[in-house]
């Protein structure tokens, strides 16, 4: 019985520990999701849209929806970094292109009709006072430029 009591106490101790120390040690977690303060006027996301050869533009949607979110967050980070560090523009562009090439790979692996598209639209989305989405295209990056490694 002593062994089981010790096991019980150790597990409780680990669960309490990660909560107090506020650190993940997979599979133990402190579950910090959505805990940080946030404000509607600060909501900004970057989404990737796809321009078809005939000109129409649609959102990139993946079977695994976190891919567009994660790449959007990375693009937002890169955008902020570019605004702060003017001397690092080349590296930031390289990093962005690397990310977009991965997106292209995902699209081609998921969507048999990927050849219908010709460019990425990097779109900033915010909400106005009336909670209506406001979209602004920041950049258009053609697939051929990405594949050829030319600067966008």
């Amino acid at each position: 019985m002593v062994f089981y009591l010790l096991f019980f106490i150790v597990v409780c101790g680990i669960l309490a520990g990660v909560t107090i120390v506020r650190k993940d040690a997979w599979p133990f977690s402190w579950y910090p999701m959505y805990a940080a303060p946030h404000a509607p006027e600060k909501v900004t996301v970057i989404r990737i849209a796809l321009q078809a050869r005939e000109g129409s533009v649609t959102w990139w949607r993946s079977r695994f929806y976190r891919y567009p979110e994660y790449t959007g967050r990375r693009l937002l980070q890169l955008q902020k970094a570019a605004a702060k560090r003017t001397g690092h523009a080349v590296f930031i562009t390289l990093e962005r292109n690397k990310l977009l090439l991965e997106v292209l790979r995902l699209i081609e692996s998921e969507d048999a009709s990927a050849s219908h598209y010709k460019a990425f639209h990097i779109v900033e989305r915010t909400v106005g006072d009336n909670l209506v989405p406001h979209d602004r295209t920041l950049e258009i990056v053609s697939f051929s430029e990405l594949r050829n490694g030319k600067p966008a």
Partner: protein
Amino acid sequence: MGNLPDIFHPASPNHAAMFARLFSAVLTIQLLISFRDQYLYFKSQPSRIYGKPARLLGRFRLPVLSASQFMDVGFLLLLSLVFIVIGFLPRLFALSALICYVFYFNSILSLAYVQRKTNLLPLVLLILVVSPSVDEHLFAASTTWELVLVKIGLSQVYLSAGIQKLQQSGWDWCTGRSVQAYLLENYLWSDRRAGLLVAQNRKLCAVLATLTLAFELTFWIIIFIPSLTCIYLAAVVLFHTGTLATMRINYGKYLLPVYMVFFTDLAFWAKDKFGL
């Protein structure tokens, strides 16, 4: 309030063994439902986007699996769970399932409905490995510390989430501003109208934020006051259904097997009534 030391003294029937079977059965179904999806995700090479997956216990980097190894580990995980369900060497196969879990889920940890959402599964499997009651007959006398520990694990998920909200946002979290912002952000990602409809009503956001915090901070009470279990289970259903509909957060999928800890009495009743 329950007498805690009693949980280490054997009593009939064997709730730990019944829980092991219910947990494994529900987890098997969840794995079967998602196996193809998870294999496709594995094949999409998520580490090229997200980087290397988390280290085990924050220390040990696990080997990268090939596609066939991923399939093999997944199949072995399923097989181990099936053996637990039919009561064939359940502790041994709980150990097998635990090892398979680590390799299988580490490879797809970045998948939206995996991430932290399967974290309780290895803890439960570890408890089943350690518990001597799991190998006993369903009507043998057994201890109940296993079930209490599972409930503590569940409570930590909610309690920690609530504590982090208080630590990072304070009681301002109850104003609903943060909830409104997160719902709007999710709407911008997904174009799901359910989230936007809630976000448009600030008072509703405040009520939901307050109820969420109250639920998360007090869930643990059911360990000491089991009579409140039904009320909290109803709250669990509402909470997880709501977050799934508005924010695409699917905690229910892999918490459902763990929630079987509250249904062992019902399972014994059904076994008795229908002779299962």
